[in-house]
């Protein structure tokens, strides 16, 4: 495309400098030298960002995250109980609350005793002027305090508040038989904040005959560090609900599979999509199962058949319609309901299962008479994160009017006005514990007055020095910057056109 031709020999003498092969000492060599220098200078400028870029470990946002795992709870109602209150007990419970303002509260307690009871021994001791023991069944830490562990036979409570995470765990019993709750809030490497809570229970005795094995409920809310958008994950499952002698009969159907819908518990709120399991095939119509292996996944019942090697899919767990299962439970005296997971503006409440049964009235006695209604429920796991990225608009995932107040409120609940003394069993009245109140999974109303929030922007030099601070940079200024770039581009194009007309075209005269 371009090439250098040798200079033709100049033969005739002329009053001009002749014979020299004039190398282009002019433009390209000088330009090459200048360009090299300029490129080196520009290249050294490019090193500046790498030298001064800040470490990217911390979350550059304001956030408020909460995680709470509540274990099973039991509400007992009987006419003989004085003042008509219901006795309630529950636990174990783990809570973690962490904010960008330096709050990192972790607490693990068994059973859940609200906020007042743990402080009662001290209060009582102060009133009576005697030294009182600390509330034994709670481990709690704040940001800056050392991790706390409380251990008793059959009970382990652990809480720790770290600079970037807050963790609480409460284990009652063992893995094989008992319950545990975990709650954790963590600042992630990418700048996001994750809030996770999980409750497990195994070998729970429900009513006189039922045993619930391998119950898990899980809730997770992760807020993205850039956008503040919350990703919610929740899962509720029961490995096995068994009762000796439980008989389940599935109705006769046309050959083929059972209808795939509805498989949900009638009257329950909308459930998530069914798990990817095949529907129970009924080859020849009605079939009766004795002591079936019934499971539960996110609102759908499953049944695991004895492996017969002919399923082909490698799994012999099937979805079953809920009607026959519920009927079977009812025949055994147990009413089961499921509260679907609830999606909050800034998080999620996992699903919870409730069983109700009535213990028959004991023989007449002076103390305790009449049938006793018992409501046992598995606790819900709650995970919420409200994250507001810096130099951005309003926080994502938070509707006006709720703010972060709801998550804080649900943590504290309403403390009981008076408490029955003994901590063992945690018999309280009317404590609105999450996941254990009259409506399973119905949290206290979230329509609280919004908390006043203060926009805190870190000081411009808070990261390692020399960085560009975008404090004050807003979306509209980036838009303006873009428009300026567009204007520069178009002006350059116009200048080139003018140069064409003035510099190239018009100079040719002959």
């Amino acid at each position: 495309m371009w090439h250098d031709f040798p200079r033709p020999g100049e033969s005739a003498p002329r009053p001009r400098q002749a014979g020299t092969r004039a190398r282009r000492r002019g433009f390209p060599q000088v330009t090459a030298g200048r360009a090299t220098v300029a490129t080196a200078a520009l290249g050294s400028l490019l090193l500046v960002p790498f030298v001064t870029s800040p470490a990217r470990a911390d979350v550059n946002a304001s956030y408020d995250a909460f995680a709470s795992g509540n274990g099973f709870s039991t509400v007992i109602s009987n006419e003989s109980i004085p003042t008509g209150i219901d006795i309630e007990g529950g636990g174990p419970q783990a809570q973690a609350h962490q904010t960008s303002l330096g709050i990192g509260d972790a607490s693990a307690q068994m059973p859940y005793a609200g906020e007042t009871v743990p402080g009662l021994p001290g209060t009582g001791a102060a009133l009576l002027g005697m030294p009182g023991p600390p509330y034994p069944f709670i481990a709690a830490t704040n940001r800056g305090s050392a991790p706390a562990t409380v251990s008793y036979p059959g009970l382990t409570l652990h809480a720790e508040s770290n600079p970037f995470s807050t963790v609480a765990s409460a284990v009652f019993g063992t893995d094989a038989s008992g319950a545990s709750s975990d709650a954790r809030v963590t600042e992630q490497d990418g700048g996001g904040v994750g809030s996770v809570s999980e409750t497990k229970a195994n070998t729970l005795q429900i009513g006189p005959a039922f045993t619930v094995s391998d119950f898990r409920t899980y809730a997770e809310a992760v807020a993205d560090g850039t956008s503040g958008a919350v990703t919610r994950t929740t899962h509720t499952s029961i490995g096995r609900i068994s009762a000796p002698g439980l008989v389940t009969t599935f109705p006769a159907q046309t050959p083929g599979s059972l209808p795939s819908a509805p498989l949900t518990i009638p009257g329950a709120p909308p459930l998530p999509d069914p798990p990817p399991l095949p529907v129970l095939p009924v080859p020849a119509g009605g079939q009766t199962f004795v002591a079936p292996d019934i499971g539960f996944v996110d609102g759908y019942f499953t049944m695991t058949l004895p492996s017969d090697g002919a399923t082909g899919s490698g799994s012999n767990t099937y979805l079953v319609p809920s009607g026959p299962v519920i009927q079977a439970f009812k025949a055994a005296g147990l009413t089961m309901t499921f509260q679907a997971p609830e999606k909050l503006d800034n998080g999620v409440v996992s699903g919870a299962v409730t069983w109700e049964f009535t213990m028959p009235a004991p023989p007449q006695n002076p103390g305790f008479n009449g049938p006793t209604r018992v409501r046992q429920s598995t606790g819900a796991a709650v995970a919420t994160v409200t994250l507001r990225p810096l130099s951005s608009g309003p926080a994502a995932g938070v509707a006006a009017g709720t703010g972060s107040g709801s998550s804080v409120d649900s943590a504290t609940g309403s403390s009981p006005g008076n408490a029955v003394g003994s901590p063992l069993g945690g018999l309280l009245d009317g404590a609105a514990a999450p996941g254990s109140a009259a409506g399973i999974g119905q949290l206290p109303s979230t329509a609280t007055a919004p908390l006043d929030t203060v926009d805190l922007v870190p000081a411009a030099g808070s990261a390692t020095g020399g960085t560009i601070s975008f404090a004050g940079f807003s979306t509209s200024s980036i838009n303006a910057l873009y428009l300026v770039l567009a204007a520069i581009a178009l002006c350059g194009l116009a200048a080139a056109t003018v140069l064409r007309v003035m510099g190239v075209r018009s100079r040719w005269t002959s």
Partner: protein
Amino acid sequence: MDILKFVRTQWDRTGAVVAILGGLLVLLLGWLGTSDTKYVAQQIPYVMSGGLLAIMLLTIGAVLWLSADLRDEWRELSEQGEVLLAEQEARDRMIEERVAQEVARQLGAARSGVSARSDVAVHR
């Protein structure tokens, strides 16, 4: 001339038009991207890939078009020089002919005894 011939001969102007149109399109797409989000951290990549890339494409277009005009002007210079050389050749031939004529005339005159008299001044 059909399109292919035009593109082949005016490749630089064609490239300039393509680059300029591409730059304007990229500019528009970048603007749509930045105005789509309300978070600065999501806008900055659009500024880089939309705005700055558009500037580069428009630079390419402008450079190509100016190069095309410069090439055309260079060609005109070349043609003018060729004309000049052609005129010089013509003048050289004319001088040679005149010289040859004069030599022949003088030779003929020498053979016939007539004294040579040149009435042609040859300037070189």
